[in-house]
């Protein structure tokens, strides 16, 4: 099931190439390109964290946006209201959303399939209702505007960085943090722990039968996914200059699911590619028409019926066909 290109293409260090290219975006592209790249990085981390549940463990979480939102609020409240520096607020966001994911997940993993999806949705709406109404802490429907950027003045001392403004500096910070998180996620999926999760996806009864504590593993996956969603939310709040209640609204959960499926949830990098494609498409299409949801819905229908494996799945199939023809 896990999509894999042929050994020859795998020898090319794609990850390093993409990372190296991404490192030069602020020099090569415009300020707007850097802005877009920051957004892609944040969404890519969010979608990758969801895929730990969706693709790896086979859990249909329809409330993943809750942990993204909690991360954004924790980081925003720490940095804006309490004046805590970023290097403390960022881990706190991960811990905060991880704790919520642990508590909510404890109840969710007891249910299966559609009931699991509905309970995750219910919890995310509880979080939304609290964020929307608790004026004293979350700013209610006004949200938390003007979350400050982290102090990145030290970057100006680096060679070639002198002319960069805060936007570009924040891009470098995001790039490094996202890459670290993605490395951990990758390690996690390839570890024995990740293999057990895949076993659970393929056949939970059999996994339980050979002695795996299915609920405990699912809860661990749910919590880990929550932590990384929290990290991406923390970055997004700063990137967007504020944290607002609609970050947590249920339709956002569907949007990140679409990214994951568009890229292909059977491939580790699929969700990241989906995030990139969808973000760029959104920017392009919204400049022509206000009917972006219509386009998104149409893309989704085509995806579900024609390319259920997403972009990576289609590429994989295409590649296999190509190499097979050459062999014959």
């Amino acid at each position, binding site marked *: 099931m896990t999509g894999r290109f042929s050994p020859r293409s795998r020898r090319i260090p794609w990850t390093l190439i993409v990372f190296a290219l991404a490192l030069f975006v602020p020099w090569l592209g415009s300020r707007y390109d850097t802005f877009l790249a920051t957004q892609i990085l944040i969404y890519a981390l969010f979608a990758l964290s969801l895929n730990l549940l*969706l693709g790896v463990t086979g859990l*249909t979480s*329809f409330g993943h946006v809750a942990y993204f939102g909690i991360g954004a609020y924790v980081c925003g409240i720490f940095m804006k209201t309490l004046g805590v520096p970023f290097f403390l607020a960022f881990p706190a966001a991960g811990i905060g959303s991880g704790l919520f994911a642990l508590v909510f997940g404890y*109840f969710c993993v*007891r*249910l299966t*399939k*559609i*009931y699991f*999806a*509905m*309970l995750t*949705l*219910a*919890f995310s*709406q*509880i979080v939304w*209702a*609290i964020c*929307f*109404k608790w004026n004293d802490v979350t700013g209610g429907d006004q949200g938390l505007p003007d979350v400050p950027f982290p102090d990145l003045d030290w970057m100006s001392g680096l060679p070639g960085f002198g002319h960069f403004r805060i936007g570009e500096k924040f891009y470098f910070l995001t790039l490094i943090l996202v890459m670290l998180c993605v490395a951990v996620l990758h390690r996690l999926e390839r570890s024995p722990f990740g293999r057990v999760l895949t076993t659970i996806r393929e056949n939970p009864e059999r996994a339980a039968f050979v002695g795996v504590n299915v609920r405990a593993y699912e809860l661990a996956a749910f919590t880990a996914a929550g932590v990384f969603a929290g990290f991406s939310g923390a970055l997004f709040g700063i990137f967007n200059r504020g944290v607002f209640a609609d970050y947590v609204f*249920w*339709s956002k959960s*569907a949007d990140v*699911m*679409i990214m994951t*499926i568009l890229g292909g949830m059977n491939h580790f990098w699929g969700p990241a590619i989906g995030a990139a494609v969808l973000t760029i498409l959104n920017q392009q299409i919204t400049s022509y028409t206000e*009917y972006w*949801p*219509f386009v*998104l*819905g*149409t893309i*989704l*229908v085509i995806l*579900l*019926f024609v390319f*259920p494996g997403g972009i990576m799945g289609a590429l994989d199939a295409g590649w296999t066909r190509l190499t097979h023809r050459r062999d014959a």
Partner: protein
Amino acid sequence: MGGLTAAMFLFLIASGLSLIFGVLRVLNFAHGSFYMIGAYLAWQVVRWTSPSGAAFWLATVGAVVGVALLGGIIERLLFRHLYGREELYQLLFTYALVLILGDAAKFTWGTDQLSVSRPVILNGGFTLFGTILPYYNLFIIIVGPLIALGVWLMLTRTGLGRMVRAAALDREMLDALGANVGWLYTGMFMLSAGLAGLAGALVTPIQSIVPGMDVEIIVQAFIVVVIGGLGSFWGTFWGSMLYGQVLSFGILIFPGFSLFSVFALMAVILIVRPWGLFGKPIR
């Protein structure tokens, strides 16, 4: 009494949602979109037939038929091919419909608030316990349970209803016994969409039609069916009643947190009895 009218609307919408879950085991996010399209269609028909006294009733029929046909077309052409696939794909397909239908409505009818006036026969009202109750609200309070009763009788007392319940239990077996399950599913989908369209048409004299009414109602309808029990008709009825009560008592107990209290109730019920207060556990 205003609360009771709202509960009846919610019940009409949620009953269709519950019906389709009971048969197809899928949560239809697009149910709210069917409701919205029903409201817009009703407005359109009223516009075409305006001076006539029967305009509103024609509009109601038009909305029911139009939305049922729309649902039938979607089921026949697209949704049918997703049966047997993972829930994730079915859920996302219905979400895609929300996006597409929402924009299609905006495209066709614009973003302005539209409204329909009450049918002439039901103008005015009467005084009850010192408050004025419009005849239209009374009509809704009576029609809501009547329709529920009709569908419930159909599901429990007729041969067709037996087939529907059999399809919910074991589709393949029913297929093997020679029933045309494909069309049965289409029919149920149309019935469910038609109920949403009916609710959409009936709501137009009370609420203005705006884009976004689809997403707003679907969340409420979800809560109702989850509380009452997915697939349980009377569960949906009591769920709508309870929803209204919790919402109004939530306002009394923690002002500003009534939204929180209904979602919390939904979560608690899912944790303790995932099949709802009135539903039966399904394996």
